[in-house]
């Protein structure tokens, strides 16, 4: 067996994943915080005020990275859900279920900060356009996956059912987006002009990209932390999990 498949096989085993992710997680958190700090400094202090939106545009530095993450997390969840359903790989089940709460958190931040940004800019907290409505439906999808996962007793069956739901959702989001866009064109005159970062200045771009990087890293840090706990619970009968639970001096991470 060549080294790539061997490596893949090893990483797919719970104790190896547990060990490797345990080593990585603190570094990932640290990296996320560092990048975020630099990006926030660049966005809040260095970047000049926007000629149209004055200083209110600075919400973009948290709103847009979280929006990107809400979609990335769902994509990540869906890929793992597919692997979990087709090949029944335990790690994929765990990763899919662990990404749901993180994705939901980013979606909630996106919706909240978007509404707060909308109030001074468009004069309204909310508008039923395609993007916002789709993001709201996305939140419901996340909550549905989380709810279904926690409603079923058997953990593996629960993960498969929730993974199935996640895959149905993946097809649904573009459909919702399209249908709301059509519905909006039907109701002309109710649309509010949206702010689009069309030509964004480089002084505003690099903090944005840095924060996007920071939130990506944070996603994986949080994902690994949750996946490790999940694996502990799932594999609590196995020796490697019990060895980790032994009350040594540093029983917590």
């Amino acid at each position: 067996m060549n080294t790539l498949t061997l490596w893949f096989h090893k990483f797919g085993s719970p104790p190896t994943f547990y060990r490797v992710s345990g080593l990585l997680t603190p570094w990932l958190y640290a990296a996320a915080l560092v990048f975020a700090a630099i990006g926030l400094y660049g966005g809040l202090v260095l970047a000049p005020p926007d000629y149209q939106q004055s200083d209110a545009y600075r919400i973009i530095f948290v709103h847009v990275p979280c929006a990107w993450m809400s979609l990335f997390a769902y994509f990540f969840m869906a890929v793992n859900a597919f692997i979990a359903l087709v090949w029944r790989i335990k790690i994929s089940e765990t990763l899919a279920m662990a990404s749901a709460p993180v994705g939901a958190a980013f979606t909630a931040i996106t919706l909240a900060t978007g509404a707060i940004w909308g109030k001074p800019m468009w004069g309204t907290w909310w508008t039923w356009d395609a993007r916002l409505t789709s993001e709201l439906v996305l939140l419901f999808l996340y909550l549905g996956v989380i709810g279904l996962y926690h409603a079923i007793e058997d953990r593996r069956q629960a993960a498969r059912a929730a993974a199935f739901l996640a895959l149905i959702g993946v097809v649904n989001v573009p459909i919702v987006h399209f249908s709301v866009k059509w519905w909006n064109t039907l109701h002309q005159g109710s649309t509010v002009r949206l702010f689009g970062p069309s030509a964004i200045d480089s002084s505003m771009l690099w903090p944005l990209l840095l924060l996007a990087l920071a939130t990506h890293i944070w996603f994986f840090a949080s994902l690994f932390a949750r996946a490790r706990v999940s694996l502990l619970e799932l594999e609590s009968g196995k020796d490697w999990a019990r060895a980790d639970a032994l009350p040594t001096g540093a029983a917590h991470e």
Partner: protein
Amino acid sequence: MRYGTTASACAAVIRRDLLLTWRRRGDALNPVLFALIVVVLFPLALGPEPNQLARIAAGIVFVAILIAGLLALDTLFRADYDDGTLEQLVLSPHPLPLLLAGKIFVHWLTTAVPLILAAPLLAGMLFLPRSVLPVLLCALALATPLLSLLGAVCVALTVGMRRSGMLLALLVLPLYVPVLIFAAGACEAAQAGLPFIAPLLWLGAALAMALVLAPLACAAALRISIS
């Protein structure tokens, strides 16, 4: 009837479900009653002004029917799950999607069709213009089977859960949103004098796909839930 063929199995499933529903035919009117109550509440809440009600009549009728259907969705598999018949269906050598298609058809027939028949009354209570009524009925005829098919997939995921009401609604909502938008959009367009055929065609296309794919998805979901 030749025993052992898939066709006879499907026919048997359909016949059984119809018979069981007939024995509790009073219950079959519950969704209609619920939709009626919802529609009655709206004028009480919004004021009796006919013009105001007429503008939102189609939307209210659709939402009332959608929610009534949602409440009735649980009965699709409940009884069969409780007495073990569902397990037998899943284990049967006949293709599960076909058997489920039969069940979903009967469920639609006994819960949604009464709602469609009641729709003219509901629309009339909200002063929907007469000219829009045919469009409303057409949209309902296309949308309600779609709702039944999509709902069946979600019910299959939550089958056997004791208090699955809110969870089911949460699962089903993202799937229902496009259906509602297109169905109500068709009525809105008709009411505004605009062409309304496009959303109806979209509904038709979605229904055609769902007729094939939903039973397959429902069968897969059932196999995951009952394992």
